[in-house]
């Protein structure tokens, strides 16, 4: 039985350690903030210039000057700081974010990520994704295991234009959890969703991987 989006987010939350500074991409990664165990101190960064992001505002208290990178209204927390986009990406590019969690269309067996462009379709742009995958100390990809068409998203080589090369550390899909031994290293299957078999993963995964189930 495949994991739900919330379960995927909860699994990603397990990778977060106390004290981490984390950037969450839009989509499923957004759910990770709600899945943190109580008592942990984690600061979320938003690349439009904010460190320390609180929950959505109460109805009627939205502030047009206070949004996250997904352009959603958010709130402050006690240790919030604001800064410019240049300072924000200095923080990201300079390797100060402990973790970036983002979605992807494809991840290759070498850890390449393709998540911003489908040739032939209107391209919206990469936003901050290229900077995040190049800069964060650790990168976790959260994505469905296969396309709607059934095509694998964990591939030998990305067929879509790349966001970054050799940048993935961890992949969480609705069916399984994978870890790279190091950046650009070997992909290892670490966990299976309940009821999912190794054969199913093998059938639905194009990327070469080793099996390292606990």
């Amino acid at each position: 039985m495949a994991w739900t989006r919330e379960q995927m987010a909860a699994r990603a939350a397990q990778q977060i350690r106390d004290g981490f500074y984390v950037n969450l991409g839009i989509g499923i990664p957004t759910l990770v903030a709600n899945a943190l165990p109580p008592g942990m101190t984690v600061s979320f960064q938003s690349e439009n210039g904010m460190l320390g992001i609180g929950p959505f505002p109460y109805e009627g208290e939205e502030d047009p000057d206070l949004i996250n990178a997904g352009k959603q209204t958010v709130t402050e927390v006690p240790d919030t700081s604001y800064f410019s986009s240049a300072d924000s990406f200095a923080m990201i590019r300079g390797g100060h974010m402990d973790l970036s969690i983002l979605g992807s269309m494809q991840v290759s067996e070498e850890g390449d990520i393709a998540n911003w462009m489908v040739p032939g379709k209107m391209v919206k742009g990469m936003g901050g994704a290229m900077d995040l995958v190049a800069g964060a100390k650790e990168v976790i990809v959260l994505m469905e295991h296969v396309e709607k068409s059934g095509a694998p998203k964990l591939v030998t080589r990305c067929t879509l234009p790349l966001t970054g090369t050799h940048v993935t550390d961890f992949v969480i899909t609705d069916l399984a959890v994978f870890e790279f031994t190091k950046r650009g290293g070997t992909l290892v299957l670490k966990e299976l969703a309940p009821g999912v078999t190794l054969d199913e993963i093998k059938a639905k995964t194009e990327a070469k991987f080793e099996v390292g189930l606990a």
Partner: protein
Amino acid sequence: MRHKVYPDAKSALEGIVSDGMTIMAGGFGLCGIAENLIAAIRDLGPKHLTVVSNNCGVDDFGLGILLANGQIKKMISSYVGENKLFEQLYLAGDLELEFNPQGTLAERIRAGGAGIAGFYTKTGYGTIIAEGKPTREFNGQHYVLETGLVADLSIIKAWKADKEGNLVYRKTARNFNPMMATAGKITVVEVEELVEVGELDPENIHTPGIYVDRIVVEVGAEKRIEKVTTRKREEVK
């Protein structure tokens, strides 16, 4: 006293906009955009503009109104997905588009304002963004050379200005505004409040007045929210 304060957006821009110029426009989405200045550019009507801005507004708001008015020839942006008109113009070949990774865009603008002609970043190495750009190895890692960006005109949104042009921004409405203020040959700022010199805290001026040529006080700004997301009072943790 320098005479930086103008009575309205149109008078502040008159004589300094022209066809084919490059304009930097602050803002992230619809947050921190200079609404009055954008409207004045529409009214003054310069064409064939190259606009450097992280996004391009929505169909009927923000930079979208310059797009709708056929004034923009080229956008340099990181993300432009929020308006259908953009897509139509682009697919019809009526709009040029240069994508920059958001951090590279921010840094190129900072570099332009800081006299840095180029810089090496890891961002985009091995992707189409790096195609045709020089690369270089530092300590065994690969970097791409990106160049500094400057503009003929920067239109900036700040919260408060004093009459010498010292600026403070509010919350995430800061975003690209501080760097763009440094990278415009002429920088015009739209503010919510104009204060006397000496009223702003010198320790906490986000943009020193040296970067600001002209100031207008914003009138009737909508400050539209792109995505209202809220929680119910019951949801308090």
